[in-house]
């Protein structure tokens, strides 16, 4: 652990103590905590800059520290406004666990040996459990927090098992690591805690967890997996297949959600899938000696980790602002918030477009590199590797398409059109402390593609690899500039042509008074997609049909439950519960029976001893 991380940890500790000391004064406690987080982030930035100048920029440590610090600082600033009015005590509790999580995440990136790493990892999980539990008054939140804790602990257990096996360096070791870290990353089947914990947690915590904590799984995985060609092969195939499934089905489930934060949580699963695709291609390229594919895949994965942190941080913070302004997370109860919350609306809209991977925002650069990696695989590889590359390209395209629909649903449902309910019509104004971090992240999202050309230098590349990456990134930046120019030109023409505009009501094909209730709902927007993939999504409908000559009320309730939870984990856990119920018969209450059981067990052990 270097000097900068230690100072950042000290700073966090001091700030948590400071927040505790002034817990009587809410405002004071809020600012002390946030200032500590921002200062710690600045220290980390200084550390990264120092490392960069001294050619000591370490991918595992410096890069992930940068990601953690960025999201950690932005979320901490947002928390001042988000938790305002909750009282100094809540702030005190929040900051102690927030700083503990933040510090543990920094420690996770910095620690290199098993035992300290595992301790930091567990602290990170436990501290964030309390953050998810922060709004414990709601029983739903409690349930979600317990599911999260279960996920964390199961992951920790698998990691302990893996570290116990670490001497062998076998495939089992790698797959245990994959499962243990995969529980944090949210690989398909292991993702069930994500859509539960994110809606329950306060928005700054969701932003921190989604933007910075789940990608730490990749950091741990790459640090502890053996760096041998055979292991790269295992890792490549595993990550590629998990990525294909996670990306497509993650975003498909996102499209089915009507809770804004749940939708974003599924989108995180999708983005982790895209990152896995990049790293998977990269490892396969390393294992099978295709340097171009390796470079582009790994580079794309790394860029997408950063982009996802920026964008998902921004989107979750925006969702938090919406929750505070309207009191709801249901997209079908929002609408028209762009007028009430202009800055949040702009940030959220740009973030939504960017997370779909569309240019000229930062989300595109990472995906572009992964695509090109896949293309070079299509052009130059054979057999299974070719099939994997082709599937990557096609699945990325399909994923991008569904992502557009899902994020159009989120941004359109919340911010565009007419307000659908009174809550949304009377939404509160946005607060400065909640707006500033979002603006900062938006600036990064716009600026990153223009400066992504420095990536080859950051990764210490030389020669052909350096040239390849920098050409692609420079051309992308050039195109972004051209695109901005085009927009300005067209806008100038339209301004000249479109003078004296008039304002009237929406035409809506002749309806006299269109209201928010007649609007297309957010759920309806993605309903055709949900129908098309109904076999996977299994959308549940509760319909109260219109009937009679004078129909009174009609109702439709659509819910999209998690398939992995429904058809896999619930089945297993319920089966286990039934088994445990049966074992209950052994607990008869007769002492004789217990002694008999003990004798039986002893006899069995004796027999085993003789036999072995």
């Amino acid at each position, binding site marked *: 652990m270097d000097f900068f991380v230690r100072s950042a940890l000290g700073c966090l500790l001091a700030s948590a103590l400071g927040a505790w000391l002034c817990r009587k004064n809410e405002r004071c406690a809020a600012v002390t905590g946030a200032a500590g987080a921002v200062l710690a982030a600045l220290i980390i930035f200084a550390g990264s800059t120092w490392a960069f100048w001294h050619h000591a920029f370490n991918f595992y440590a410096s890069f992930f520290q940068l990601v953690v610090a960025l999201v950690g600082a932005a979320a901490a600033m947002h928390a001042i406004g988000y938790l305002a009015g909750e009282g100094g005590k809540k702030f005190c509790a929040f900051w102690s666990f927030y700083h503990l999580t933040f510090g543990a995440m920094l420690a996770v990136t910095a620690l290199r040996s098993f035992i300290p790493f595992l301790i930091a990892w567990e602290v990170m999980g436990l501290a964030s459990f309390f953050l998810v539990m922060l709004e414990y008054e709601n029983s739903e939140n409690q349930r979600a927090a317990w599911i999260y804790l279960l996920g964390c602990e199961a992951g920790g257990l698998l990691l302990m098992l893996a570290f116990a096996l670490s001497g062998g360096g076998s495939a089992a070791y790698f797959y245990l690591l994959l499962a243990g870290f995969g529980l944090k990353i949210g690989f398909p089947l292991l993702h069930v805690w994500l859509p539960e914990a994110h809606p329950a947690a306060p928005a700054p915590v969701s932003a921190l967890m989604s933007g910075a904590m789940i990608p730490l799984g990749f950091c741990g995985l790459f640090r502890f997996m053996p760096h041998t060609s055979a292991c790269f092969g295992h890792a490549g195939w595993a990550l590629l297949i998990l990525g294909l499934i996670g990306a497509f089905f993650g975003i498909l489930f996102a499209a089915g959600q009507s809770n804004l934060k749940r939708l974003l949580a599924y989108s995180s699963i999708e983005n982790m899938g895209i990152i896995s695709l990049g790293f998977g291609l990269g490892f396969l390229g390393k294992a099978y000696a295709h340097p171009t594919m390796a470079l582009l895949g790994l580079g794309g994965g790394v860029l997408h980790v950063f982009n996802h942190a920026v964008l998902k941080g921004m989107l979750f913070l925006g969702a938090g602002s919406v929750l505070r302004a309207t009191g709801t997370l249901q997209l079908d109860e929002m609408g*028209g918030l*762009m007028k009430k919350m202009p800055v949040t*609306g702009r940030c959220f*809209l740009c973030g939504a*477009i960017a997370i*779909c991977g*569309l240019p000229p925002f930062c989300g*595109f650069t990472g995906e*572009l590199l992964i*695509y*090109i990696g896949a*293309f070079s695989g299509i*052009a130059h590889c054979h057999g299974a590797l*070719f099939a994997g590359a*082709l599937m990557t*390209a*096609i699945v990325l*395209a*399909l994923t*991008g*398409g569904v992502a*557009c*629909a899902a994020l*159009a649903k989120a*941004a*359109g*449902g919340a911010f*565009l*059109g007419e307000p659908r309910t009174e809550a949304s019509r009377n939404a509160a104004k946005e607060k400065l402390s909640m707006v500033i971090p979002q603006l900062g992240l938006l600036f990064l999202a716009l600026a990153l593609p223009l400066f992504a050309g420095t990536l080859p230098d950051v990764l210490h590349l030389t020669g052909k690899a350096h040239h*390849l990456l920098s*050409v692609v990134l420079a*051309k992308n930046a*050039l195109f972004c500039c*051209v*695109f901005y120019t*085009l*927009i300005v*030109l*067209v806008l100038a*023409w*339209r301004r000249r*042509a*479109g003078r004296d*505009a*008039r*304002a*009237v*009501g*929406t*035409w*809506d*094909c002749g309806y006299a008074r*269109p209201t928010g209730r007649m609007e*297309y709902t957010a759920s*309806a*927007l*993605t*309903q*055709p*997609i949900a129908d098309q993939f109904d076999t996977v999504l299994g959308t549940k409908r509760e319909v109260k049909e219109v009937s009679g000559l004078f129909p009174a009320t009609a109702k439709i309730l659509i819910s999209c439950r998690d398939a992995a939870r429904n058809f896999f984990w619930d089945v297993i856990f319920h089966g286990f519960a039934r088994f445990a119920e049966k074992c209950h018969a052994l607990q008869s209450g007769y002492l004789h029976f217990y002694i008999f059981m003990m004798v039986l067990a002893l006899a069995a052990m004796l027999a085993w001893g003789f036999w072995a």
Partner: protein
Amino acid sequence: MKLLIWSTGIVAALAGAPLLPGIVNRVKAFFAGRKGPSVFQLYFDLAKLSRKAPVYSTTTSWVFRIAPVVNCAAVIGALLLLPIAGKASLFGFAGDVVLMLYVCGLGRLFTVLGALDTGSSFEGMGSSRECQFAILSEGAILAVFGALILLTHRVSLSGILAQMSLHLWSVDGTALILVGIGFFIVILAECCRVPVDDPDTHLELTMIHEAMILDNSGADLALIHYAAALKMWVLLLIEILLICPKFGGGAWGQLAGEILCVMLGAAVIGAVESVMARYRFRKVPQLLSSAIGMGLLAVVLLILFQA
């Protein structure tokens, strides 16, 4: 010289794109036994619309106003990535196919958001359908280009299209036919033509693209119509370069041949529109999935029969 030819091609596309819907309509009129509007009708419409003051709904925000602008800029951006008359684009690079696809996706997403911004249920319905069909058509484009990358071992648009030749057709003709048909289906979907969408329908319930722009007027509507025509030009040009890659007569001859063939492509679209009815909405995903299938089938053929 190289730059001059390329920029002439770009200017020709920018200036000539509004001809394409005119040609399509003229061909449809011919099939129906009518005289039909002038080929230059869209030019007149654009001139008229750009002089009209726009009307904005009070429900809308800045998103509605910027959507046509971004959409138009996106299509022009896509055009700038194309190789023209055998000259590579100034902005082209390895993987520019993705940039082209995604910049068009940006234009579409803004159209969808602009439609949602009006709060109109019809426009919401149009956006919903657009989103659904876009998923499969993007997948189809990638499947088609996957086959082309495998065939040519090139990653950039200019590189792929430069490799197309009569020789390639004589060797891998079957795969190229599948690729051509798959891409043509994509064109029909992306340009909102029959059998996916009917631009001439009079019933809002059955519209897709037209339903999304019900509230646009004046210069905004002009931008939308222009962008749609230009998108048709861009996609047709790619299709032309796939099917008949080389014309005689040097670079200028090549340029003239490409432009003529794009017009011819518009006539083919008109003919297709005239001889078939539009599909039911439930059938459209099947059509687009078949385009993905054609791309994958072309890949299989290439792998099986490549020496």
